[in-house]
């Protein structure tokens, strides 16, 4: 039996539902040494800003139980260098490219959206309103429904590319934010970005990260992410890209059952560069075993009211 892996998220058409997460995959080239990126549903590149950013001092990484804290601080070459240097190279990778954008003001988000070409390998823009690692802006937009909506509204005016709103988990009510971005022109919702956390070095008696606080990712955050995907799926009609700790196909299935139409693999790349490929293969095998003709059939299954899974009936 052939399983249909193709996935459609509003205007974003993917050959399969497995993407890589922004900030964990550079501009693709590092992992293109391990496998052909055309095998992926697509890649999300490092968050870019209008101006180049040198990012935070080191240490930027701290390990935690089944997770990591990072405080990279959005180091990136800036819009201009992205367009002149990185975009032509991305074009050669023959995969759907999602460009993650961050602004410090509404104007910056608008300028970024306007400058990114609609007729290139760029398949969608992911509007990052959730970066915890920069002093002002970033996460502030994503923690208040009104400003989250404003960012999406100004961005929407500048581009016809599908817009993905990337939500922050550092909020009391994720549903309120999801509804706000839905009402203001987002086509897709992705979640979660990292959870704000910190560690203290016992020898020095000081915060371990130079930036004091950082964003938690990896398997440790997965239950939080699954819960948020589940809640958002119930409340909005937009397709969801689920992420947060996905390391194997079982994790991906869990997100899809919760309501994600596609998934992103982040921190897991650092441990197993082949994780995204293994997840694609595992998803396919799981669907075949369960008798699903398409991965789409998994999406949101955990919400149904009738009797739970019964393998015998399939």
């Amino acid at each position: 039996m052939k399983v249909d892996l193709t996935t459609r998220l509003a205007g974003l058409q993917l050959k399969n539902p497995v993407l890589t997460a922004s900030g964990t995959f550079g501009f693709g080239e590092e992992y293109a040494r391990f496998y052909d990126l055309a095998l992926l549903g697509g890649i999300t590149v490092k968050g870019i800003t209008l101006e180049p950013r040198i990012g935070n001092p080191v240490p930027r990484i701290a390990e935690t139980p089944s997770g990591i804290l990072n405080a990279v601080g959005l180091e990136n070459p800036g819009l201009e260098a992205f367009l002149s240097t990185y975009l032509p190279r991305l074009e050669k990778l023959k995969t759907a490219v999602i460009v993650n954008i961050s602004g410090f003001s509404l104007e910056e988000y608008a300028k970024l959206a306007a400058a990114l070409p609609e007729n290139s390998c760029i398949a969608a823009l992911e509007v990052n309103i959730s970066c915890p690692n920069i002093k002002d802006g970033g996460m502030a937009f994503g923690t208040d429904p009104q400003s989250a909506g404003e960012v999406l509204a100004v961005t929407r005016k500048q581009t016809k590319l599908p817009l993905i709103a990337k939500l922050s988990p550092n909020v009391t009510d994720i549903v309120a934010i999801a509804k706000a971005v839905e009402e203001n022109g987002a086509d897709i919702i992705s979640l979660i970005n990292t959870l704000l956390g910190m560690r203290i070095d016992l020898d020095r008696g000081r915060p371990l990260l130079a930036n004091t606080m950082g964003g938690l990712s990896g398997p440790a955050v997965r239950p939080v992410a699954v819960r948020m995907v589940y809640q958002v799926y119930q409340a909005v009609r937009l397709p969801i890209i689920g992420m947060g700790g996905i390391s194997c196909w079982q994790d991906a299935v869990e997100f899809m059952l919760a309501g994600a139409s596609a998934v992103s693999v982040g921190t897991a790349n650092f441990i197993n560069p082949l994780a995204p490929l293994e997840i694609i293969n595992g998803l396919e095998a799981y669907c075949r075993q369960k008798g699903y003709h398409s991965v789409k059939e998994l999406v949101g299954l955990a919400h149904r009211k009738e009797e739970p899974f019964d393998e015998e009936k399939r």
Partner: protein
Amino acid sequence: MLSQEKIICHRLLDPRYGLYQLVLRGKIAATAQPGQFVHLKVGATTDPLLRRPLSIARIDRARGEITLFYRVVGRGTALLTDVKEQESLNVLGPLGKGFTKPAEGELLLVAGGIGIFPLFSLLEAVDRSRVKVKVMWGGENRQFLESAGLPILRELGVEYEAATLDGSLGQKGLVTALLESSLHRTRTSQEMHHSAVAGAGPKDSVLQVAACGPRGMLKAVTEICCRQGVPVEVCLEERMACGVGACLGCVCTVKTATGHKRRRVCAEGPVFDGREVVWDEG
């Protein structure tokens, strides 16, 4: 790049300092260069989550083997001590950009503590019939240096000078003091030589320094070398996540014509031109 390497030898060198030797056989030895490193998966679970970077200390292409040395410093390296000979390890590598290998002249290797490990690979890679190699190595005391590799230096028959904090071997104090007086001596004798033969003698033999050790020591080594006009390469260490240049977790700062720039220690390094590194950052 991603390889299952067979563990040929894994042994405790010194319980007091938690020093181990690990020999791996597989694909990595074929392309490994001195100064490069490998990123090891140390356990089967997600805690600890990340791989551990270890520099490649010896490369034996004929046997397809690399040797790593490590000191137990945290949970990751503690877990690594459990792996058994004949088992295999999941290894990413060889990674990073290593040392420049001089073809002639003089090479001075300056190590602080376990910073000697990556320098072994450079020492073995240079053609010592054409390059005069000397090692300067500082450590806590005689026992540490004996356990961490003095036998290798003797086996290779390389000239070395030691410095120990307690004076139990070599000069008492820091390796930087050895370096300073040695470069000073070289400089003075060259000047004397020059004035005696009025430039008619052999060309100055080109001297270069390669150093690895704690950051403070590398900074001091670089300052001494700059003062004497000697080129210096340093092997840096930083906390790593991906190890392949994708996460920007491991950067250092360098001076360039267009101002200070970040460089990824795992990708553009771990070896950098010491003169380019910005040692003091706010």
